[in-house]
């Protein structure tokens, strides 16, 4: 080991601004990216539970064809808040939390580029979440126009109050947008400017590639949603007739602005999930990721194509024929780079020595169910089919296979996989497997029946329905209660293992990647010395490092 004189200078400089808080303050006022990452994960999980409870109330309502448990305005409020919270307070920020924890470690940086900005971006999340939830207490009730808040429905304001649920929704979305832009600036700057020496772009783990492409989408598409929210605000509170069709306004314009962000938002959500699959699958197959470069570039391919497909959400909005045709083609084009990834994962598993621990189970199930979601996605991309099932449960089933059965599975895979890194302890494998099987069975029971229901013509967002649909609805409701129960072993496992789990070595999975070269949990500034990277990631099966279970397949 050469004791490098440079290190002296560097560390002397760093020590100026390490004033680590101790005790409870550490969890409130720290700018350490790892603490902020954990704050994100815990906060968003709480919102996940709340929004999950909303869906269980809705599924309870849908057990019988009559509207009996909740009244219709409340039902509207529940599905609006369920969708809004799951997207903007669970899936997107949870993966931001994961990325917050992992990206600096994976690229060999000491922290994010702008630590204070990072902390502010986090603190907006709980505030905006409480703002949204507080709208249940308003005399007007919550927003009721669904998570996409289409005018003219969203602008009707039946209660007549100035402070109504819709206004709170707009403010919440605008705040969360600001938080996401701060995050986007921070992540892109960190990845572009702070990689360790030798960490070229094509040596970055796929997770970093996917975070970079997702955050670029946030930076350049999300402002359209913020713009749309400002326009809604002007019309709702000041009466600017932008979207009012009776005063020359154009409600379709809102749909364009909304989906210009909210379609790429799907890829903001799913790309980091693909990143997690690309980390977990090689580690538990003990093989390098197949086609690393293709997978890395496919992330960018997906990001670029995803900005050109938004009108497929509007096939039934009086969209002209040429536009339908064009966007049908671009939509189907997305299947190409995503297909590249799926084949790469399959080829990685092929002939690998599989270790079916909890993270791998979640990842494998996630990939399999993503293939299903992808197939229904291509079906929906076809205009003729889309018009047939427009606004039915088929659409609901499709996107829940994406957001729950793919992305949430990936999030759980990631939490289990990096749990020993974050805590220095191992989770309980038995509880983890129980959690997996309950989730896997529950998710399919809940979301599969939505496909036949949609094909039969059951419309979404209604609390009462034709009795012929009841049997599949009962199956879906049983599934959703199972899914709710499935979170209990997860919570027990996480709390119990954090406190009393078996202590493990720094790299219990014998995984590659810079994050595994430092101690578990990592020290405040991540690395004793900034590492130098000399090879591509995923060197599984090639290292001489002792790795029980690894096979040398030279």
């Amino acid at each position: 080991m050469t004791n490098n004189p440079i290190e002296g200078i560097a560390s002397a400089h760093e020590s100026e601004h390490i004033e680590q808080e101790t005790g409870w303050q550490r969890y409130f006022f720290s700018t350490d990216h790892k603490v902020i990452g954990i704050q994100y994960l815990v906060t968003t999980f709480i919102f996940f539970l709340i929004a999950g409870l909303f869906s269980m109330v809705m599924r309870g309502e849908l057990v019988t064809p009559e509207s009996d448990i909740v009244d219709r305005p409340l039902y509207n409020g529940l599905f609006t808040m369920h969708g809004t919270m799951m997207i903007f307070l669970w899936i997107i920020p949870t993966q931001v939390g994961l990325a917050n924890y992992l990206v600096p470690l994976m690229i060999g940086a000491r922290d994010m580029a702008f630590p204070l900005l990072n902390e502010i971006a986090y603190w907006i999340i709980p505030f905006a979440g409480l703002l949204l939830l507080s709208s249940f207490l308003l005399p007007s009730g919550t927003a009721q126009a669904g998570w996409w808040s289409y005018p003219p429905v969203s602008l009707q304001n039946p209660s007549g109050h100035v402070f109504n649920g819709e206004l709170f929704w707009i403010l919440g979305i605008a705040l969360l947008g600001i938080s996401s832009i701060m995050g986007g600036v921070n992540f892109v700057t960190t990845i572009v400017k702070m990689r360790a020496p030798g960490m070229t772009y094509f040596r970055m783990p796929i997770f970093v590639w996917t975070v970079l492409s997702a955050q670029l989408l946030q930076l350049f598409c999300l402002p359209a949603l913020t713009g749309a929210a400002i326009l809604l605000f002007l019309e709702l509170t000041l009466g600017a007739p932008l979207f009012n069709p009776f005063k020359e306004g154009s409600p379709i314009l809102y749909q364009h602005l909304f989906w210009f962000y909210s379609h790429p938002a799907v890829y903001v959500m799913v790309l980091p999930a693909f990143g997690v699959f690309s980390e977990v699958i090689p580690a538990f197959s003990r093989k390098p990721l197949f086609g690393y470069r293709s997978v890395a570039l496919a992330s960018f391919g997906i990001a670029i194509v995803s900005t050109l497909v938004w009108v497929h959400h509007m096939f039934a909005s009086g969209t002209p024929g040429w536009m339908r045709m064009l966007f049908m083609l671009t939509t189907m084009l997305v299947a190409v780079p995503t297909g590249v990834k799926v084949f790469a994962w399959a080829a990685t598993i092929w002939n690998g020595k599989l270790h079916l621990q909890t993270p791998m189970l979640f990842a494998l199930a996630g990939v399999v169910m993503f293939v299903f979601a992808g197939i229904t996605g291509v079906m929906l991309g076809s205009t003729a089919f889309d018009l047939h099932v427009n606004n039915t449960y088929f659409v609901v089933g499709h996107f829940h296979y994406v957001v729950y059965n793919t992305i949430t599975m990936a999030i759980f895979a990631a939490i289990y996989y990096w749990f020993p890194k974050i805590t220095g302890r191992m989770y309980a494998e038995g509880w983890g497997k129980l959690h997996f099987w309950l989730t896997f069975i529950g998710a399919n029971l809940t979301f599969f029946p939505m496909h036949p229901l949609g094909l039969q013509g059951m419309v979404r967002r209604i609390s009462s329905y034709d009795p012929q649909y009841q049997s599949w609805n009962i199956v879906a409701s049983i599934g959703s209660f199972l899914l709710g129960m499935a979170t209990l072993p997860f919570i027990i496992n996480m709390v119990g293992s954090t406190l009393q789990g078996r202590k493990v070595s720094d790299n219990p999975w014998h995984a590659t990647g810079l994050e595994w070269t430092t101690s578990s949990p990592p020290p405040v500034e991540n690395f004793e010395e900034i590492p130098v990277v000399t090879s591509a990631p995923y060197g599984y099966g090639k290292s001489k490092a002792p790795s029980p279970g690894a096979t040398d397949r030279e």
Partner: protein
Amino acid sequence: MESPIHPNHLQQPLPQPDGSAHIEDERSKVMFGFTIFLLSESIIFVSFFVTLIALKLTAHQWLPPGVSGPEITTPVIINTVVLLSSSIVIYFAERALERNHLGKFRLLWLTTSAMGAYFLVGEIKEWLGLNFGVSTGLVGATFYLLTGFHGLHVTAGIILQMIMLARSFIPGNYNHGRYGVSAVSLFWHFVDAIWIFVFSLLYLWQAT
């Protein structure tokens, strides 16, 4: 086979003993981050421009009866000239700081803010004299949307300039670089450039 990672070996360029490499690092991070932020921010304006263009092209009745829409009056022209030329002033302010002419920097910097404030006052005067409001048809909605949102950015720019001016009185403030000033200056150029689009779309393009 070698282990892929050598944590004990450092290949970075040697930082200068005075830490200037570190400052250069910070500067490049801040300017990069700020630039992509501005690019992102410009998408909000683009979404508003698209809104205006789409509505103006498709509306059957852009101007409600009795409303003439925004007109290019002498005050509007003066306002535009003042705002756009403030970009030149702030450029020289930044140059003065680079040459460590602190007094000249403060004078030019303050002049920029004053020109921005003049623009804002002129705009509010214009608003008060118009015969349409934000709820008066599409012309009113889009006019107040664009001028208002742009005006907010001018206000933010002036506030940032005041902060930078106050910080210039802190002894040793520029020992760690002056990228705060560079960032605010970039923001000001951005705000001025946006005005060119706003002016063209609202005033130059007269609906028939």
